C-alpha cells in the first residue's frame, strides 16, 4: 500500500495514542481503587502527621542539604583550583578525589563517614556534622568539575584585562574570574542542590533521635505506626515542594544567562 510520508506519520501517531489509552484503561479497571484510596489517601493519618512533618522532617531535610551543599561548595572550589593549578601533584590529587567519590554510591560515603570516623578517631560525631561532611564530600566531587568548567568558560580577555591593571593571579581569580564563573554555573549548581536534597534521605541509615528525623525517616516511622502508605505520599509531596521550585529556578537562570554553553574554545588558564 502506497501511503504518503505524512499520512503514515499520522497513522503511527494514532496507533501510539491507542496503546496509551489501552494501558490507562487496563490500569483503571484492574486496580483496587478502594484499597488505593485507604492506603495512600487516608486523610486522618495525613492530618496526624502535621505539624511535625514540616517542623521536624522538612526542616531537617533542609538543614542537612544546606550544610552539605555549603561544605561541598567550599570543598569543590578548592578542588577546582587544584585541578587548574600548574602544580602537577595538586592536579593529580584533585583528579583522584573526583574520580573516587563520583564513582561511589552516596550511601557508602554516608555510612563510611557516619560510622567510620567515630570508630577510627575514637570520637563522637554529631549527626549534623556527619551528614554535612558526607553529603559535602559526595556533592563536591560533582561540583568541582562544574566549577572547573565554569572557570575555564570565563573569556581569556577578562584575565588579561585584570592582569594588565596590576592584579596578581590570585587577586584576578577571586575578584574577576570566580564571580563570573558562578554566574555561568548557577543553573547546574541548582541541579546539584536538587540531587543533594534527595540524597539527604540516605541519612536514615545512620539512625537518629526523633528530633533529627528528616522527611524520609519521618515518613518511614509514621508508616510503621499507621500501617498506611499515606506518610510516604506526604513525605513525597514535601520533597516536591522543595525540588520543583528549584528546578524552575534552574530553568529561569538558564534562560537569563542565555543558555551559554560551558567549555567554549576561548577558555581561561590562570597560573596559580
Amino acid at each position, binding site marked *: 500500500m502506497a501511503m504518503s510520508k505524512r499520512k503514515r506519520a499520522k497513522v503511527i501517531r494514532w496507533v501510539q495514542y491507542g496503546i496509551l489509552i489501552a494501558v490507562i484503561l487496563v490500569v483503571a479497571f484492574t486496580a483496587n481503587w478502594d484499597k488505593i484510596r485507604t492506603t495512600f489517601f487516608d486523610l486522618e493519618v495525613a492530618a496526624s502527621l502535621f505539624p511535625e512533618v514540616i517542623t521536624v522532617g522538612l526542616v531537617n531535610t533542609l538543614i542537612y542539604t544546606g550544610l552539605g551543599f555549603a561544605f561541598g561548595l567550599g570543598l569543590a572550589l578548592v578542588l577546582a583550583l587544584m585541578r587548574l593549578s600548574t602544580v602537577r601533584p595538586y592536579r593529580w590529587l584533585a583528579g583522584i578525589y573526583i574520580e573516587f567519590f563520583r564513582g561511589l554510591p552516596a550511601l557508602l560515603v554516608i555510612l563510611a563517614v557516619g560510622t567510620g570516623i567515630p570508630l577510627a578517631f575514637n570520637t563522637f560525631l554529631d549527626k549534623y556534622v556527619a551528614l554535612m561532611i558526607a553529603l559535602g564530600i559526595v556533592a563536591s566531587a560533582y561540583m568541582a568539575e562544574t566549577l572547573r568548567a565554569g572557570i575555564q568558560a570565563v573569556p581569556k*580577555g577578562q584575565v588579561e584585562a585584570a592582569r594588565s591593571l596590576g592584579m596578581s593571579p590570585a587577586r584576578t581569580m577571586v575578584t574577576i574570574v570566580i564571580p563570573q564563573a558562578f554566574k555561568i554555573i548557577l543553573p547546574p549548581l541548582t541541579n546539584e542542590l536538587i540531587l543533594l536534597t534527595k540524597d539527604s534521605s540516605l541519612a536514615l541509615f545512620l539512625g537518629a533521635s526523633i528530633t533529627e528525623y528528616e522527611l524520609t525517616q519521618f515518613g518511614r516511622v509514621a508508616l510503621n505506626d499507621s500501617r498506611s502508605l499515606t506518610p510516604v505520599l506526604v513525605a513525597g509531596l514535601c520533597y516536591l515542594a522543595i525540588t520543583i521550585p528549584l528546578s524552575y529556578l534552574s530553568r529561569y537562570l538558564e534562560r537569563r544567562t542565555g543558555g551559554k554553553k560551558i567549555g567554549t574554545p576561548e577558555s581561561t588558564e590562570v597560573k596559580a
Partner: protein
Amino acid sequence: MSTAEATEVAVEITDLHKSFGPVEVLRGIDLRVGRGEVVCVIGPSGSGKSTLLRCVNVLEEPTSGTVVVDGTELTDPDVDIDAARRRIGMVFQSFNLFTHLNVLNNLTIAQRKVLRRSQAEAEQIGLANLERVGLDGRESAMPNQLSGGQQQRVAIARALSMDPDLMLFDEPTSALDPELVGDVLAVMRRLADEGMTMLVVTHEMQFAREVADRVLFMDAGVVVEEGPPEQVIGSPREERTRTFLSRVLNPARVAEE
C-alpha cells in the same frame, strides 16, 4: 616632542624575539619610545605588531631580548610584574570590560584592590576619568548596555584611573562599527595632546598620520621602516610599505586587480 633623542626614554626594547612553538613571530625588534612620544605601529595582520605590544607589559613572555619600561627591566625573571603593570595602561581590541561589574566598579576595582585607594577616592578619580572620555552620567550602566565605542572609552578611562605613565593600545577601533570609531580616536587624540606616552597598534592611517610622532611599519616580525608619519605613510621608501599602504588606503582597487 617629535624627536625621541631629546626626551627621556620611557620604553626601551632590545633585540626582542618571540616564538609560538616553531613559529617565530618577532625576529629581533629594537624600539625606543621617549616620554610623551606617540608611536603608531602599522603593518599587515600576522606581522607581529600586536605581539610586540603585548610583550611591552609582558602579557606575552618574550623568548629572548629585553624590555625596559621607566628604568625597570620587565624581562627580568625576578621583577615584580604586577607592580610594573600598574604604571602601564592597556586597551584591548575587544574592550574586555569586566562583564559582572557596572561602569563605576570597572573603573574603581583595580584602584581599590591594587593601589589600595579608598572607595571615595577611587570613585572620585573614576568619575573624573569617565567625564574625560565623554561618558559622564553612565557610571551605573552595565557593560552590555553600552555600544562598542562607549565600552572602549570606558576601558580607556579604566586604564587612566590607575594614573599610568604609558598607554598601550592594541587595535582599539578594529572591533567597532565605522560610525563609532571617531569618538574613540578623539579621546586618544586628546590624550596624546595632553602629553601621554602612547604606543598604538592601529589600522587608522589618518589617525597615525595626524597624531603619531613616529610610525613603525612591521612585516614578518621585523621593523621594515620607521620614521615620521609624513615619511612612512606619505612617501614610504620600502616596497613592502608601499604595497601595504596601497592595499589599506585603496581596498577597492586591490579587489579589482
